[in-house]
């Protein structure tokens, strides 16, 4: 089946009964077949999707030396309540005057009243964000764009999250979402790796997860450290040696640096996972988020519209350009 149709069908199915927000999706989707933008945007700003909304930075959390989490809320009243998204979607985050960047929303829609973006200092704009954006400042937000993790597919299954570095951000959105709807899922494993213990983001939240008896959290760092008592080694190695996931009835969701994703997928396949059970989010340069600017083209796929969430099965059908 061509990817596009597959995607559309899949979206329509899996967004089904996730929550009220996605019911709205369904409603709109039946009306406008190809409209994959969230209802929020549609209802308020149908015409000019390139013009951002102003958000205020409520809180800045320094996660690691080069990662900061910005907690955002809309300036205009009443917008935050209507701003709905599903785990895996992204926003275009603009530091006005400096430029625009694409970030995944790192918190779940079930935590009301705010949304988070975790930003790693990497390029020109992100460096500007780190140096100049503080609490109380304004940023421009467009979105949410893209598709989301197949919530319906993972329902009633075991879920294994494999994250590396800043790649935990999109997973965090899903993890929070799943924790808040814990009844819908079976076993829960979170495997998270970072270069050093200092490079781990969301430390407080990881502690919460470790205290939660219903979750199984495995942490690892690349090189041994004195104060580190648990696993040491790269993520794929720990995955094979420590986690030893069940293959039956399990969905794996992975995100991290490209090289980590590559080897994780390899070892998952070695463990016997099927391609369709491995779900990942792709990183591509994007500018418009609307399927117009052509940057995120991989073959005939627009990552900003058909992605960024893909199963390994779909990735195999794409040219090797990501």
């Amino acid at each position, binding site marked *: 089946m061509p990817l596009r149709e597959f995607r559309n069908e899949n979206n329509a199915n899996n967004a089904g009964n996730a929550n009220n927000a996605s019911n709205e999706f369904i409603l709109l989707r039946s009306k406008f077949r190809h409209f994959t933008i969230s209802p929020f945007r549609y209802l308020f700003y149908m*015409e000019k999707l390139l013009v*951002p909304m102003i958000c205020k930075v409520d809180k800045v959390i320094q996660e690691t030396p080069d990662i900061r989490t910005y907690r955002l809320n809309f300036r205009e009243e009443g917008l935050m309540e209507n701003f709905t998204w599903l785990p895996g979607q992204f926003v275009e985050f603009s530091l*006005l005057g400096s430029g625009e960047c694409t970030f995944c929303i790192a918190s779940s829609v079930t935590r009301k009243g705010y949304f988070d973006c975790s930003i790693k200092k990497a390029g020109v704009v992100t460096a500007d964000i780190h140096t100049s954006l503080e609490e109380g400042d304004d940023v421009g937000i467009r979105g949410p764009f893209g598709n989301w993790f197949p919530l319906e597919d993972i329902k009633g299954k075991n879920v294994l999250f494999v994250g590396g570095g800043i790649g935990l951000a999109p997973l965090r959105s899903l993890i929070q979402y799943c924790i808040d709807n814990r009844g819908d899922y079976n076993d829960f494993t979170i495997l998270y790796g970072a270069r050093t213990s200092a490079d781990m983001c969301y430390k407080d939240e990881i502690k919460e997860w470790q205290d939660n008896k219903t979750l199984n959290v495995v942490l690892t760092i690349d090189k041994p450290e004195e104060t580190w008592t648990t696993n040491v080694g790269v993520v794929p190695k720990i995955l094979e040696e420590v986690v030893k996931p069940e293959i039956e009835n399990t969905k794996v969701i992975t995100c991290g640096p490209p090289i980590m994703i590559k080897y994780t997928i390899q070892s998952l396949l070695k463990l016997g996972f099927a391609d369709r059970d491995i779900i990942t989010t792709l990183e591509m340069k994007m500018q418009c988020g609307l399927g117009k600017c052509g940057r995120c083209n991989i073959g005939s796929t627009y990552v900003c519209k058909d992605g960024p969430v893909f199963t390994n099965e779909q990735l195999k059908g794409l040219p090797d350009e990501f």
Partner: protein
Amino acid sequence: MSFSTFVTDKPGLQKFYEAVLASHETYAPAEKFGKFDFKLVSRISECDPESPIAKTQSIKPLFFPRSAKVMKYVATSAGTDVSEVDEDPLAVKRIIIGAKHCDARSLQVLDKVYNWDYIDTDYQKRRENTVIISTRCDKADTHCFCTSLDYDVENLDAMDVLVVNGAEGKIYLRARTEKGETFLKENFSQQLAVGSEQSEVGSRHSAEEEMKKQYAAFAESFRLKMNYKEVNERLSKIFDTPEFEKVSANCVSCNTCAFICPTCHCFKISDEKVKDTGLRYKSYDSCNNGYFTLMAGGHNPRPAKYRRWRQRAMHKFVYYKERFGENLCVGCGKCTIACPVNISIFEVVNQVASAGIQE
């Protein structure tokens, strides 16, 4: 619905253009530094509707400006205000004269990408408010290959009014759309019409035949011919061919091809800031640019020149076709003329496709 045809001659057409220029906001090819670009003109002497295709920029910038203001912001102590910037008054009716077939066709191709999912309203408004008067070329240029692509050049309905040079100095003005029909009826005064062929049936008949004849002569004059179906099919199968490395060797990555291509639609969004105010622009970009897909972390999915060329060729002849059912190329040959080392997209796709056979 059948559309009407009017017959006139050279001075008649000139007078018609003058009348249009006087009464409407009209864009026509105006010369500057030996190159024609579509500009707002008020007199026929300022422009040349018959400008040679090789030296004329496409009409794409009139619909997708080279640099469009997206929004404006003002930072004050109370917070930041963001407002839309209304680009050149979109609601004004415009006429384009002197467009070529390929120009008109390119808009049909672009419509597909602008109208899927999110509909670009600016583009849409510009499109609705413009009447395109397009002239059919008498002879193909060295780099033209529009007849070899997936559209019917003879019966193209992308333009609103078609101008065809017939035999014995006769010129046929043919409405192609309803918009064109109303425009012609309103603006073409019967005094400009010539000959006895004004009577309905007779004129349509002979005009039709005249135009067919003219088209046959035009189609004869093409140097470049290819079978687009074969090319599409072969290209879609040979993603990993080393041939791309060969055909891209000459490229100096100057990006001109994408900037002047009538169908390339990639853009970038950039901010400009002075003090507390700023503008956000949406301006052209090119996939041949090494920075095009470079991500902040330093990861670049297309680091090598041949990969970028592959993206360009495949996007035009495979990906766009897969997604929207059309080739992202209208065969105007403008990229070849503008290229400092004359790389021709025609040669590139044909060379790669024929390499596919040998393998």
